[in-house]
């Protein structure tokens, strides 16, 4: 990296770092395949003179353990400065920019190569651009770690107990949750999901989480779910937050009355699971997405909390999960998993995650898996 020095006459030296390519120096470009959906999400592979075979077989240059992909699915060759894809009589076919290819086909810069649900993008990039992309990946990792560092520790020694699992997807999402004491009698728990992925969603997620953790809504009664959601809506209007909005479930448990008051906005229900796991009670009130409308009409719900019951809060990434054939698990099919008996040595969120993973296609999940259980 070129640097220049500037001596100010005292003991201060300022170093200038230049990111631009110096005049006369030819920037090196390469052709890359980047996995943007499916198995190996985020993987970046540089093409060279040797043909690259993509398939399920372990001998392939790019191995994709995905049922949509044939053992030897397609070949990609860099020839005369052009990238050419050829289908190898695959079962599901190879598509370039949405069109099935029957003969060797040029992949222009930015084009999309699809094999079932496996999606790969061709990028012609300079080494500097690749370095920047890698730095962005590292920033995403930092953003993900920062969100995780703000989540509360599980509670095992006092009542209610809380246990959770968050498994971030390859793209950073905007899920977060929290819980804790509001006073001697009241215990709050919440989970929210910011629209989209990436650093923007993570940043908004951190802002919301800090507002809720530090109770930084002036004049707001945090024991009132509708008041909290209304104030969040006023604070996080999408026009002021890069077009992002979020869904949320927020509940306050009163130990003395053994009662839960709650409100939700744009979020699917939380579920109260009875101690013998025979009864699931959906807990949801009607409320639109937070940040979309200036005025909100919110409702508050309440329910008695029997001793030994559990509250399950989760994000849509838990059930918007596809199997190898493209079938989605869905909320309806998730619910029977909540009734199943506990697994020795695993927390409830871990047990649910294992079940969802068994259903899901191989590779990382498309969205964050965020699951919080509060045991009363």
């Amino acid at each position, binding site marked *: 990296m070129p640097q220049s020095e500037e001596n100010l006459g005292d003991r201060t030296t300022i170093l200038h770092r230049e990111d631009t390519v110096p005049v006369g120096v030819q920037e090196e470009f390469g052709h890359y395949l980047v996995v943007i959906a499916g198995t190996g999400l985020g993987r970046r592979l540089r093409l060279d003179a040797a043909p690259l075979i993509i398939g399920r077989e372990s001998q392939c240059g790019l191995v994709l353990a995905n049922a949509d992909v044939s053992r030897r699915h397609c070949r990609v060759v860099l020839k005369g400065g052009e990238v050419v894809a050829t289908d190898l009589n695959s079962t599901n076919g190879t598509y370039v920019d949405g069109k099935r290819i029957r003969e060797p086909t040029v992949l222009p810069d930015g084009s999309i190569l699809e094999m079932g649900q496996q*999606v790969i993008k061709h990028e012609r990039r300079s080494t500097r651009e690749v370095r920047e992309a890698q730095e962005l990946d590292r920033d995403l990792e930092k953003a993900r770690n920062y969100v995780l560092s703000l989540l509360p520790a599980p509670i095992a020694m006092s009542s209610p107990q809380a246990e959770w699992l968050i498994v971030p997807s390859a793209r950073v999402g905007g899920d977060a949750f929290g819980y804790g004491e509001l006073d001697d009698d009241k215990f709050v728990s919440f989970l929210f999901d910011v*629209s989209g992925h990436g650093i923007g969603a993570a940043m908004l997620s951190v802002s919301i989480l800090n507002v809720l953790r530090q109770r930084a809504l002036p004049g707001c009664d945090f024991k009132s779910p509708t008041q909290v959601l209304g104030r969040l809506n006023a604070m996080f209007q999408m026009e002021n937050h890069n077009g992002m909005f979020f*869904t949320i479930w927020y509940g306050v448990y009163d130990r003395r009355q053994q009662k839960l008051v709650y409100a939700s906005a*744009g*979020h699917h229900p939380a579920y109260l699971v009875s101690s013998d796991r025979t009864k699931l009670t959906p807990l949801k009130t*009607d409320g*639109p997405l937070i940040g*979309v*409308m200036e005025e909100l009409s919110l409702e508050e719900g309440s329910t008695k909390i029997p001793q030994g019951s559990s509250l399950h809060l989760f994000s849509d990434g838990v059930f918007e999960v596809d199997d190898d054939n493209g079938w989605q698990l869905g909320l309806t099919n998730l619910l029977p998993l909540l009734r199943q008996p506990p697994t020795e040595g695993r927390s409830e969120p871990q047990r649910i995650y294992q079940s969802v993973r068994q259903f899901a296609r191989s590779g990382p999940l498309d969205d964050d898996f965020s699951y919080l259980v509060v045991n009363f």
Partner: protein
Amino acid sequence: MEIEILVVENFARVKLRGRLDTLGVDKIESKFTGSVVPDGKNTVVDLREVSFIASMGLRMFIAVAKQLRRRNARMVLFAPQAQVNEVFQTVLLHDIVPIVADEAEAVRYAAS
């Protein structure tokens, strides 16, 4: 994700096909927004062949609906599949964007 746009006078009919996940929205959002928003056209959107919608898809519809409203135009969605409609019901999208059963109703609603 595929998009077809048919513009007739001051009215746009948009047909979407595929999954409105992050990748799908990336593919069509510029074309969708650019075709209907600048001229403030009343717009009906055919969702019969949309099999999945994620938050980025909701965000696209909400943003377009709001921009059209500022131009005194209206967007109406019609015929969502059950799984997509379930998402709309959860987030109460109909409070922001009208959702109706078929095209004829959508056209009537958009023009009213």
